[in-house]
């Protein structure tokens, strides 16, 4: 199973036998549970907020009379417990909520609707905590972090826009791709190796305004979970991480609104019941007005410039019956920039329609139809020149998941999905007499099916095991022209494929394994292994992701990327009231079929590129340390990552290993929020890391009258150390009893030290002395202040 199975067209014959293999391994696991004579009953249901009916995923449930019997609510707030028939007390708890106990006469299987009341006092104090404490100790998965939108509200960020992705990069093992960028690298992986899901729909470009904002409007986001290793088998398609963003369901009881007015962006959200207790909705919108400031520019062209974005998020759910609920989520984002005669726009559109159905007390089904589109358009218009470049990547995904609780301490998830990709790289559209020739339509079509099964098993009160297997395929389909290349990248043979004809099929098995063992009530060790496969590849030349970066599918030339990761970790809570949690994790990841450009390749967003690509391998390894303080007036965390990320290509750097672009061996983040008075809280973030690897010139020579740099080994040097301190303060007006309107002010100062962190270094001839050359460093963002007024009612 360690090698991908490559089957050329038509390539469906292996499917059945492999499904049998995965089913068999699951049956073996099930038969390990000894049969018991006693009558067993199943307690299942959902945990929700008393007031808003918002589901509480991650809430912990415990049977008081049966030590060690418990579970946590899943992403849909759903839980299942199987216990011997009897009289019990069920305890439900969740960070920021009052723990509730409820007597349950468990004589027969039943559906329970549990409600927890938010703990107002505690809420203020736990702004920067995760629901880690309980979850970390009991879940088998290592390398998982969950961020709640409430937690990030006070962490200072660029331009004062609270941002789940930016806050994510303050966690160990997650590094921003560059200053102000929303692109990020997880455990040494590339920026395209993260599967970013918004209610199950993939987001291909998670950034606004060239990365200074992330795609997600935090008002609409309930929480974000990142899997850095040991991904559960239901996820697949990217090598390095899964970022699962869940939108809020909306308040099912009452109409509420919230919003914010900031220096360069404003937002508004409305939520409420569709029909009381039957369904709810939430709609949020956001618009920036950065270009307003350009109107003050002395330059005439800049005054006409456009630079803004909007996004719109909506979600609704409706109860169709006792056991059936329908969900719809949609996202629409659009960025525009340009001057007179030049326009550039891009954006994501997603939609998810999901039917959740409880087939029985033990079996739940989720059926989803998911749409995702990312496109960009460049337009040039002047009196004499007119042309446009358009690019698009679009997915249709049909997905069926089942969750089955066959016996106490066991959960089986299984399902299948089928994605249809349409990938149109930048295509020039121009009139016949334009200065640029129109280019041919190079659209690629592909089918990506997958089946998976995952088995969660509390093998003993202390040992938890999750075993999973994913079987994924990728078929590149015609119509289209595909070539094979020789070692130097010259096309050997080219073939035209008809519509629907299979160009090439790749099949891969992805085993997943996670185990945890509870050493003491407050400490756990965990280990995991995961293989991931990636069939869509981003071609990028720069560290930061650009909206025009190009995705290409796996093809006869470009092989599926593969990653194998092993990881282990130690987790423990410290202090008398368990105020501190500590985690230490190590990982090693091996990457195959990595892609890079040939030395000297012309970067080309529109034409054929496959001949200019090289295939190589990568290795990344590291240690991640995290200490969090979750309660009290001071909350926050300290994270340190020691890591290495390298690549090897036969044709680059004379075949020697070189540092990957995202290799930054030392990385420290400190996040703190201090509740000064009931009204005021102050916060600070300090980040420092090794500089990014760069290739510096080691000499220069002259040819044809021009001075040319002679470059040294790839990525052998580093930019200076990166260091930044951000400060924030939040003023929350005490809400008089009985009044619904509530407001707060948020102030922040980005890069308070004013350090000029190098964004890029250019080597050039001195402007007024052509006999000399110099290195010029560009730094972005010093002392960026911002203020935001937030309200809700």
């Amino acid at each position: 199973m360690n090698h991908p199975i490559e089957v050329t067209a038509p390539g469906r014959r292996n499917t059945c036998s492999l499904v049998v293999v995965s089913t068999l391994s699951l049956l073996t696991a099930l038969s390990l549970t000894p049969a018991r004579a006693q009558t067993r009953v199943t307690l299942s249901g959902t945990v929700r907020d008393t007031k808003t009916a918002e589901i509480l995923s991650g809430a912990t449930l415990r049977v008081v009379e049966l030590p060690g019997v418990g579970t946590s609510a899943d992403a849909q707030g759903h839980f299942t417990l199987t216990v011997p028939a009897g009289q019990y007390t069920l305890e439900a708890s969740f960070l920021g909520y009052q723990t509730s106990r409820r007597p349950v006469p468990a004589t027969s299987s039943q559906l329970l609707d549990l409600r927890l009341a938010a703990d107002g006092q505690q809420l203020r104090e736990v702004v920067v905590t995760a629901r880690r404490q309980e979850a970390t100790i009991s879940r088998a998965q290592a390398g998982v972090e969950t961020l709640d939108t409430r937690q990030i509200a006070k962490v200072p960020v660029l331009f004062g826009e609270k941002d789940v992705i930016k806050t994510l990069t303050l966690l160990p093992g997650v590094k921003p791709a560059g200053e102000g960028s929303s692109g990020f690298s997880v455990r040494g992986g590339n920026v395209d190796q993260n599967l970013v899901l918004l209610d199950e729909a993939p987001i291909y470009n998670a950034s606004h305004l060239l990365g200074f904002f992330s795609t997600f409007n935090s008002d609409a986001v309930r929480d974000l979970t990142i899997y850095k290793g040991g991904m559960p088998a239901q996820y697949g398609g990217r090598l390095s991480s899964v970022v699962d963003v869940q939108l809020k369901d909306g308040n099912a009881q009452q109409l509420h609104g919230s919003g914010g007015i900031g220096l360069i962006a404003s937002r508004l959200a409305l939520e409420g019941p569709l029909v009381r207790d039957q369904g709810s909705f939430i709609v949020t919108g956001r618009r920036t007005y950065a270009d307003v400031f350009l109107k003050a520019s002395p330059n005439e062209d800049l005054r006409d410039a456009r630079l803004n974005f909007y996004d719109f998020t909506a979600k609704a759910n409706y109860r169709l019956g006792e056991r059936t609920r329908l969900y719809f989520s949609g996202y629409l984002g659009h960025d525009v920039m340009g001057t007179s005669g030049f326009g550039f726009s891009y954006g994501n559109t997603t939609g998810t329609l999901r039917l959740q159905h409880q087939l029985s007390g033990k079996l739940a089904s989720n059926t989803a139809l998911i749409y995702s589109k990312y496109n960009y358009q460049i337009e040039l218009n002047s009196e004499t020149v007119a042309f446009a470049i358009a690019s698009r990547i679009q997915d249709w995904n049909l997905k069926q998941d089942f969750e089955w609780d066959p016996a106490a301490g066991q959960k089986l998830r299984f399902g299948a999905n089928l994605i249809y990709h349409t990938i149109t790289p930048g295509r020039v559209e121009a009139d016949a007499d334009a200065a640029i020739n129109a280019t041919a339509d190079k659209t690629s079509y592909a089918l990506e099916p997958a089946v998976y099964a995952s088995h969660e098993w509390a093998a003993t009160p202390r040992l938890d095991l999750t075993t999973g297997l994913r079987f994924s395929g990728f078929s590149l389909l015609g119509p289209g022209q595909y070539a094979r290349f020789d070692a130097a990248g010259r096309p050997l043979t080219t073939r035209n494929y008809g519509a629907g004809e299979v160009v090439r099929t790749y099949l891969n098995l992805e085993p997943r394994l996670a185990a945890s063992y509870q050493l003491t009530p407050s400490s756990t060790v965990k280990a995991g292994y995961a293989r991931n496969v990636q069939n869509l590849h981003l071609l990028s030349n720069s560290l930061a992701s650009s909206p025009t970066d190009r995705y290409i599918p796996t093809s006869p030339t470009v092989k599926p990327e593969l990653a194998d990761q092993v990881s282990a970790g130690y987790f423990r809570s410290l202090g008398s009231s368990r105020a501190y949690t500590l985690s230490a994790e190590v990982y090693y990841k091996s990457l195959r079929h990595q892609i890079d450009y040939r030395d000297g390749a012309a970067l080309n967003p529109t034409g054929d590129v496959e001949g200019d690509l090289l295939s190589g391998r990568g290795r990344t390894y590291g240690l991640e340390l995290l200490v969090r303080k979750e309660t009290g007036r001071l909350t926050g965390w300290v994270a340190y990552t020691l890591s290495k990320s390298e690549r090897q290509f036969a044709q680059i750097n004379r075949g020697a290993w070189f540092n990957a672009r995202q290799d930054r061996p030392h990385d420290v983040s400190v996040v703190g929020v201090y509740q000064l008075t009931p009204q005021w809280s102050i916060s600070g973030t300090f980040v420092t890391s090794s500089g990014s690897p760069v290739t510096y010139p080691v000499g220069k020579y002259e040819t044809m009258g021009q001075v040319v740099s002679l470059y040294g080994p790839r990525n052998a040097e580093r930019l200076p150390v990166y260091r930044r301190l951000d400060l924030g303060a939040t003023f929350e007006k005490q809400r008089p009893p009985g009044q619904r309107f509530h407001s707060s002010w948020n102030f922040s100062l980005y890069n308070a030290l004013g350090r000029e962190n190098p964004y890029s270094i250019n080597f050039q001839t001195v402007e007024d002395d052509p006999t000399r050359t110099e290195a010029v460093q560009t730094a972005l963002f010093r002392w960026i202040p911002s203020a935001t007024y937030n309200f809700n009612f």
Partner: protein
Amino acid sequence: MRPPFPKFAFARFTLGLAAALLATACTKVVDLDLQDAAPRLLIEGQLANDGRPCTVQLSRSTSYQNPNVFPPVVGAVITLSDAGGGLETLRETSPGQYRGSTITGQPGHRYTLRVETEGQSYVAQSTMPAVVELTGLRVEKGFFGDLLSWCRSFWTRPGSATTMYSASTATDG
């Protein structure tokens, strides 16, 4: 029929422009501790169909921090041969500058340049391609304000599609 013309490479528009507008970008000259590679030999030869003989320059690369002075390589033995017959040794006219006398460029001929210096020899071969006639030229001004102008050249492309052309533009005043 309009003559076909080679595609212009699509210029990636400087997105940094927008970033610079948005941010308070600042630049400064920095002093970097750059490594120095051992000086490398640079051989640059020109032969055209303009009736003039072959010229060759030999120089060495220098440290990036140094001024743009590239040490000439003197005393090399350089020969040029034409596959159609003819062989000559180039004469050093000034330090590092070498010049032939009899062989001139003819389209379709294959030439071999051989350089011997400090115990090493270097050989390069090249066939002079057919002449490409320029059939038209058009300059269009006024784009991005006056930031960009388009210069379109028209010519008839002979032979295979993989031939590359280099076009130089210069502004006068």
